[in-house]
């Protein structure tokens, strides 16, 4: 192996060599710089590889031929090697990225760049505290120089502010160093003994060193200077500043915190939390892209500082966790800054230009996911392990704060992504420089690669090797194919997977697999109607399906959670594709991530540090009656209920489902919601009833279910938008299912399961039908339609069957659900929530009638006279569903019976008796075939009677009778559709008042307002910034001292 000292020697040598060149030989200077950086990168990477493979041992490098502490020594271990690789590679790519700017500024700039990378490397390697200072100053000066690479005139002021603050820091650092030396008799970091947190003598000296290093990390709120650099500097340099400088500074702090001992770690934790939360909140109010990235960098470094504060409990996992977050952040942030160089405008919405290149969109999405620790990236594994360790060590508050911060970060990052995807670009398409695009792609590939490595290195299964995910990612490569080919492959993949896994499933899994995956394949049939390549549809769709497939297969909490996040991410991108879906997709992902974090906390709480945690073990926790059990229950239930859109957590759903594309709405409604039910199901099966403060939590769930069912239905009847109506109806239906599940009896579960199947079928069908109508009429507003029955007869039939099934009118399958439902509540001892459910039934009937009436009946609009039936591929799956509904109505036993038997094995009772075609419960009985036969027979007889009397009736125009064939001037006045249930609104309109929306709105508004107010501390005055740094140090000093005494 080449000694790491050559990284420094190469950097310096190249720097000086460039100094030898003539001024006009800029090309040579650039070449030299790149060669040096490449050599440094090669050394770093080869060390990393060798250390990982176990070929090499960590190396202690002595200088001057004298042993430490008498001479400066360096150390090359795995952590150092990894960070050096990040630093040097970022430097290398940034060098190419900066090429035009470097050429413009001359050879000196190239030398400065090389020396900066050298200094960063030195900072990582050195084990001497004063040497640390020297490298710091080198970095400061080099940064001061490279800020000038920017074309932004404001960069000069930013550089000066940076220097001013650095001066303050160096004063503190030097004082701290010399008194530490005095106390320990050595400058070697490893000679600093662990010591209690104290504010005299050695302790105070150590405090000064530590706080100086922390201030170097640009902690909120003492970081205005750094933000200015991020905003004004050349993006190529900002990438380096964020990815390499911040990373290095963090490692420097880490070295000293490591020796200072566990007593000092709370300091890191506290400051990290403040920084993470504070800067993320402030970022909310930010509209400038690079400044936003700056805030995000500060926040992320704060997060790693929090991790650093947990090194006492992380133990061996420390490198894995901290490294996972730190390196992922470095890559993602470098990538984002490089991306920002491709965008000419500085407003967040200007990133819309990226849409010109799908690869860049993918990169943007990847970076956002990386920053947020979403699977399959490295941060995900780190986040998971961190949460588990925190909880196991009883540091739940830290976890809560971290998750809140992460949620806020998700807020602005996804808002930004949404803007980029949906807004109109204010600036013209610039055409992207190939070298810059290459840099971005390199970062993206590195991020994916790192995700793979982390997956392979950790104790968890490597997500990237999971077949469903790999299959979904395959579609990224297949994007150039035409849509029909991809669709074919997608359907084959889904069906193939079900066929493959089918033998291993228990009946419950089988039902969900059939609904989610096979059902998904049916819905995908509708996607054949789209022509062209349909870029950006299949990867997210398949990502969602992959998540669902993995969810069903999940054995451990890790697999479950990973699958959960994958399907959330996939569905987010899918929803975002809708026309006006930007705000709705955002609230979807935020609620989903909030829910996911609750799940994470719940699993972490349950696992108590032991991994892997099999889902089955939830039962053990419940049985043991541990005090945490109800909390686990609450957290998991809340998480799952965000997905089922239980009332209070539902506000994302209507918009998200309504604005989605025609074939996406059924996916996210009919299928995605079931994921939440699946989770709840497992939770209730494993944990059963839990009591918290004397309240049976399943009773709470029953109430929530009933309220969701009721309010969802009430809101649905007031909608004018057909898809929104269906969306609210989904809330209601999921409320029913939740209600059934939470009843905790055999029939309740069966009821929920019937809802899983039925809701999937009729909601998919209805969404497809309404979507088909929208394809033709180009509106979703029902009062703009009317009289479409003759023009779109097949769609009408599917809506008709759908609403009969859904409202529970015999003989279709919905009735079976109602019957099971009544029997289930008879077996339960809860009374009041039933009332709500009873009210809901008829109300559900109201909105469904409205749907069919205002679209298909009544007067046809003039502009719709020439409409054709919906596209064949949209109608086809509807017809399949119609056939299924009828079959399921008559033969519910074909699937239910197996599941019923399965549920019986869990609940231990046999609630239903299946004899022949009669299904008997403790209370009543139900003979589907007889019902269908009787009704059919009567219907046919009556119809025959009417036909006999009135067989030659001829169809007349709609205006013929009442209007005496005089067409009224405006046909729309004759279509009674708008505000259809006006009496209800008069009587029950108060239920429509958007309490929940107002609540969440007020929450986010107040966050935004406080962010907008608080960020005014960044006055832009360099002196004020320096003052803030001093104030920060003094405040920490006083608070920490107060904490110690």
């Amino acid at each position, binding site marked *: 192996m080449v000694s790491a000292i050559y990284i420094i020697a190469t950097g310096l040598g190249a720097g000086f060599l460039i100094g030898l060149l003539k001024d006009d030989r800029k090309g040579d200077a650039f070449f030299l710089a790149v060669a040096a950086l490449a050599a440094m990168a090669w050394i770093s990477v080869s060390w990393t590889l060798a250390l990982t493979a176990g070929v090499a041992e960590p190396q202690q490098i002595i200088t001057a031929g004298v042993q430490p502490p008498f001479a400066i020594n360096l150390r090359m271990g795995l952590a150092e090697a990894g960070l050096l690789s990040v630093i040097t590679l970022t430097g290398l790519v940034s060098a190419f990225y900066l090429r035009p700017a470097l050429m413009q500024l001359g050879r000196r700039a190239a030398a400065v760049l090389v020396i900066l990378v050298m200094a960063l490397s030195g900072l990582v390697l050195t084990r001497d505290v*004063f040497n640390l200072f*020297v490298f710091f*100053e080198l970095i*400061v*000066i080099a940064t*001061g*120089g490279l800020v000038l690479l920017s074309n932004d*005139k*404001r960069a*000069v*002021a*930013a*550089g*000066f*502010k940076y*220097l*001013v603050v*650095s*001066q*303050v820091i*160096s*004063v503190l650092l*030097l*004082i701290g*160093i*010399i*008194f530490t*030396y*005095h106390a320990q008799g050595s*400058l070697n970091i490893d000679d600093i003994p662990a010591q209690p947190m104290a504010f005299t003598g050695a302790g105070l000296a150590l405090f000064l060193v530590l706080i100086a290093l922390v201030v170097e990390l640009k902690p909120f709120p003492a970081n*205005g200077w750094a*933000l*200015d650099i991020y*905003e*004004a500097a050349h993006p190529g340099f900002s990438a380096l500043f964020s990815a390499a400088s911040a990373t290095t500074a963090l490692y420097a702090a880490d070295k000293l915190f490591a020796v200072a001992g566990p007593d000092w770690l709370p300091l890191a934790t506290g400051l990290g939390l403040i920084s993470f939360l504070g800067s993320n909140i402030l970022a909310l*109010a*930010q509209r400038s892209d690079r*400044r936003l990235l700056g805030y995000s960098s500060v926040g992320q470094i704060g997060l790693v500082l929090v991790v650093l504060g947990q090194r006492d409990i992380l133990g061996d996992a420390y490198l894995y966790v901290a490294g996972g977050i730190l390196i992922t952040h470095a890559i993602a942030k470098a990538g984002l800054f490089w991306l920002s160089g491709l965008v000419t405008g500085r407003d967040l919405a200007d990133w819309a230009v990226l849409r010109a290149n799908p690869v860049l969109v993918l990169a943007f999405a990847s970076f956002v996911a990386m920053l947020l620790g979403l699977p399959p990236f490295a941060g995900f594994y780190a986040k998971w392990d961190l949460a588990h360790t925190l909880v196991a060590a009883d540091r739940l508050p830290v976890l809560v704060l971290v998750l809140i911060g992460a949620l806020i970060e998700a807020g602005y990052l996804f808002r930004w992504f949404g803007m980029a995807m949906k807004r109109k670009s204010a600036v013209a398409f610039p055409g992207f420089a190939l070298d810059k695009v290459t840099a971005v792609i390199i970062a993206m590939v590195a991020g994916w690669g790192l995700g793979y490595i982390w997956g392979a290195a950790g104790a968890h299964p490597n997500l990237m090797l999971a077949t469903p995910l790999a299959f979904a990612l395959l579609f990224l490569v297949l994007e150039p194919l035409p849509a029909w080919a991809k669709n074919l492959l997608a359907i084959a993949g889904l069906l193939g997977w079900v066929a493959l896994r089918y033998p291993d499933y228990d009946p419950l899994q089988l039902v969900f697999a059939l609904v989610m995956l096979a059902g998904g394949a049916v819905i995908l049939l509708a996607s054949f109607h789209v022509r062209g390549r349909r870029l950006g549809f299949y990867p997210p769709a398949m990502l969602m399906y992959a998540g669902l497939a993995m969810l069903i297969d999940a054995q451990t909490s890790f697999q479950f959670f990973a699958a959960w996040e994958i399907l959330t991410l996939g569905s987010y991108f899918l929803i975002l594709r809708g026309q006006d879906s930007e705000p709705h997709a955002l609230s979807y992902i935020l609620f989903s991530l909030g829910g996911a974090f609750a799940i994470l906390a719940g699993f972490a709480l349950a696992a108590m540090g032991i991994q892997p945690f099999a889902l089955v073990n939830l039962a053990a926790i419940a049985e043991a009656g541990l005090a945490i059990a109800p909390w686990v229950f609450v957290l998991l239930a809340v998480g799952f209920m965000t997905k089922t859109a239980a009332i209070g957590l539902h506000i994302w759903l209507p918009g998200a489902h309504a604005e989605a594309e025609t074939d996406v709405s059924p996916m996210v409604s009919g299928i995605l919601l079931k994921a939440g039910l699946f989770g709840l199901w497992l939770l209730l099966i494993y944990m059963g009833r839990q009591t918290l403060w004397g309240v049976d939590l399943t009773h709470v769930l029953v109430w929530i279910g009933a309220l969701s069912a009721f309010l969802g239905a009430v809101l649905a009847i007031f909608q004018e938008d057909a898809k929104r109506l269906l969306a609210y109806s989904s809330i209601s239906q999921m409320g029913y299912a939740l209600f059934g599940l939470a009843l905790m009896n055999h029939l309740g579960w069966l009821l929920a399961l019937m809802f899983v199947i039925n809701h999937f079928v009729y909601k998919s069908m209805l969404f497809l039908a309404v979507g088909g109508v929208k394809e033709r009429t180009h509106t979703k507003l029902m009062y703009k339609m009317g009289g479409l029955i003759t023009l779109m007869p097949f769609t009408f039939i599917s809506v008709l069957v759908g609403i009969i099934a859904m409202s529970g009118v015999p003989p279709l399958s919905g009735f079976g659900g109602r019957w099971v439902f009544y029997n289930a509540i008879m077996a339960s001892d809860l009374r009041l929530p039933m009332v709500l459910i009873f009210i809901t039934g008829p109300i559900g009937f109201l909105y469904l009638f409205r749907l069919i009436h205002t679209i298909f009946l009544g007067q046809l609009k003039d502009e719709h006279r020439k409409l054709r039936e919906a596209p064949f591929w949209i109608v086809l799956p509807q017809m399949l569903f119609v056939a299924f509904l009828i079959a399921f109505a008559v033969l519910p036993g074909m699937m239910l019976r197996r599941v019923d038997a399965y549920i019986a094995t869990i609940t231990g009772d046999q609630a239903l008796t299946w004899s022949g075609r009669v299904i008997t419960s403790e209370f009543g009985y139900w003979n589907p075939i007889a019902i269908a036969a009787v009704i059919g027979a009567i219907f046919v007889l009556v119809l025959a009677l009417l036909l006999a009397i009135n067989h030659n009736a001829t169809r007349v125009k709609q205006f013929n009778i009442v209007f005496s064939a005089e067409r009224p001037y405006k046909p729309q006045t004759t279509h009674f559709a708008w505000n259809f249930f006006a009496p209800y609104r008069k009587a029950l309109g108060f239920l429509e008042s958007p309490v929940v929306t107002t609540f969440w709105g007020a929450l986010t508004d107040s966050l935004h307002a406080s962010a907008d107010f608080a*960020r*005014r501390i*960044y*006055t*832009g*005055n*360099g*002196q004020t910034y*320096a*003052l803030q740094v*001093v104030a920060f140090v003094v405040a920490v000093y006083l608070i920490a001292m107060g904490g110690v005494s």
Partner: protein
Amino acid sequence: MYLVAMAAGFLLILMGLYGALTHRNILRMIVGFTLADSGVHLVLVAVGYLPGRTAPILDSAVPLDEAAQRIIDPVPQALVLTAIVIGLGITALMLAYAYRLFRTRKSLDIAEFTELKW
């Protein structure tokens, strides 16, 4: 003696910082920082001082075998030497920046360079 130097050094640091944090003129801020730097250097050297010993030079006045008993701690001096040079580097850089800033606005008031904020 070392206490005097140390006290003076600390005072100088505080005074320098006061100047740097209150003067709005950029050049005066830099002057403040050079004062603070001098103070830091003083404190550093004072820490290495052992009463009654001589400079760490092993000439005829200091026999080699008694060196450990005769000379003061040389390490802080070496550090200060480095610190002084680095301080000069930063000061020079800040001065260059000050000039550059002056060229953009014809002003040296730090409060005027606030285009970047929030």
